[in-house]
């Protein structure tokens, strides 16, 4: 079987949807975070696939940037979560509704 661009894109879309589902349904902030990473990587996969099939390195350059930014974001995000946990003793989103009307 020949593996084409659409196969990669389908996998990427599946990964993205799984990540999104996780973000929306899971209650634990850490899990939500991991799901977010999953969504980012789905985007990375699509970009690499496009790069490969278009004989163009732009997509891969983009991926490097995303990986870098994701690393930075994760460090900040995890620091926030730790700080939050220390203050509230919880990492569940249902308990964090201070911004409610």
């Amino acid at each position, binding site marked *: 079987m020949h593996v084409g661009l659409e196969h990669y894109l389908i996998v990427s879309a599946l990964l993205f949807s799984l990540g999104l589902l996780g973000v*929306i349904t899971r209650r634990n902030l850490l899990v939500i975070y991991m799901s977010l990473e999953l969504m980012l990587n789905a985007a990375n996969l699509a970009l690499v696939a496009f790069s490969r099939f278009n004989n163009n390195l732009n997509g891969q350059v983009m991926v490097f940037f995303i990986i870098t930014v994701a690393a930075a974001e994760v460090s900040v995000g995890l620091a926030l979560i730790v700080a939050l946990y220390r203050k509230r003793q919880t990492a569940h989103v249902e308990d964090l*509704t201070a911004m*409610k*009307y």
Partner: protein
Amino acid sequence: MTASLTWIILFLPLVAAAVITLFTQRDRELSAKLSIGAVAISFVLSAVLFLAHGSGKPFECACPWLFLDGLEIQIGAILDPLSLVMLLIVTGVGGLIQIYSYGYMHEDRSVGRYFACLSLFTFSMLGIVLANNFVQLFIFWELVGVSSYLLIGFWHERASAADAAKKAFITNRLGDFGFILGILLVWNVTGDVNFGEIKALLEHNPQAFGALAGVAGLLIFCGAMGKSAQFPLHVWLPDAMEGPTPVSALIHAATMVAAGVYMLCRVFFLFNVPTAWPASLAFLGGLTPLNVIAWIGGFTALLAALIAVQQNDIKRILAYSTLSQLGYMIMAVGLSGPTPAMFHLTTHAFFKALLFLGAGSVIHALHHEQDIWKMGGLRARMPVTHWTFLVGTLALCGVPPFSGFFSKDAILAQALQRNSYGLFIVAVFVAALTTFYMFRLYFVAFRGEARDDTASHAHESPSVMTWPLRLLAFASLFAGVWGIDAFLARGFGDEHLHSLPWYQALLEPLSHSPMAALFGLMATALGFSAAYALYSGAASDPLPMKLGALARMMRDKFYFDELYTGLIAFTHEAISRVAAWIDRWLIAGIAVRGTHGTTELAGRALRLVQTGNLQTYAFLLVLGVAVLLYLVLK
């Protein structure tokens, strides 16, 4: 050369006003001298222009001021017989009155402000006189209104003066509203505001106004109705006497109130077009705007003369007499006689300024007593004031050879020449009344015995006040034979009046229109004998006994003030109620509370979306993206 002289004449008083207001207001002597100096130089320059251009062609100069699409508005100056005579009146009579004020206002604290206002007034009046287009005329027209307001309310700490100033300003505003509508109409029809251009256009095409010719004339007349205090807007002028007496002399007798007459003469070509009325005014068919003007003038003259008969305040008598004489002038304009109107304006400026200044001298000597029944016997104690006042009275009554005789006779002759017998009878009757009330004033105030302590201790005014009186008396005596009428007539393209040597001019009225002269003299004689019989040596006014209710109505000015007050209160109340309803229900109710209520409800509903739950927001975000994607990719 001529142009720069003209600009100097115009702007010198403004410079004086500005310098006084900004720098020298505290220094009373210097302020007075600056103001008098400015008007004196303007007078000398006007005399120079008069000699240089009096016999030549009209001169016009202008500089552009404002560009609107398709229209250039200028600030310009015309020098023709009409404006040259007015220049001399405004600067000459104005100058004398300013010199007189120097004596009269000597005690006052705010002399600086007084002279600044007088200079501002002189500037504005000169602007009207020189104007070569409607817009400039209107600007200076309003400036004159403002300076008049400032001067009537000069003693603004007195409530009556402040009220009178407001009344004058607001009443004038009514007339000016019609005036500006008229200007806009003329501008709209002719596409120009320059007098010369409009005149040329109307000569070329007299039908340019179509059915609006009559309306345009009447609207322009509205301006004169306000400024020259014609019925029904006459009510402000008597109240304007709250101002200092020299102001009454200058503004509310000699010059400003004459501006309406001057304006009508300046734009007289507007009334020479064939009359037509729009369908909604068809009931005016057969009348021309000039007929309406003439009858309003005649009615005002009669009304004011009747009221003057029963006034006891020396300034009010003169004020109603001014109204009455203005009525004469307006009537003359309405009888297609701008020359007699301007002639009477000129002589009236002399003798009415003289009379007011004489009254001021009396008031000054009697420590602000204005009731003629508390005067008496002033002839011996104030000789100069007495004889100059008598000259003014004789001139006003039209006794030959005083100037008033010639100008009043010219108006009577004009009425006869136009076959307007109704107005002729009115004018003759008013002439009799004029003589009656003026000699009533003269006999009561100057003859007989002093009725009051202050009157018996009166003494003559200082020479800075009596010299202007002497000079004005000289002018009032001789102005009739100087050939002013012939000079003015040339300005209106009327060449048949020739300048006569003075000894012929003296008898000219008798040969020109013997009927008019005869009736005028008879009226004067009648008025004089009635006044002599009733008031010579009278201790109190016998007329209320004889006339009863009529005398009361005259004394109460035929209740026009009460009528207007009631009318205004009534309409004011009605308008206020409607306005209050609109404010309460439409503006505060629907607009303000409605907006507030809807916004608040919407806010309450929308804030329920803010659950504070991160995942809800994430879900809504994704939902939004999905919807957008669907819409884009559809």
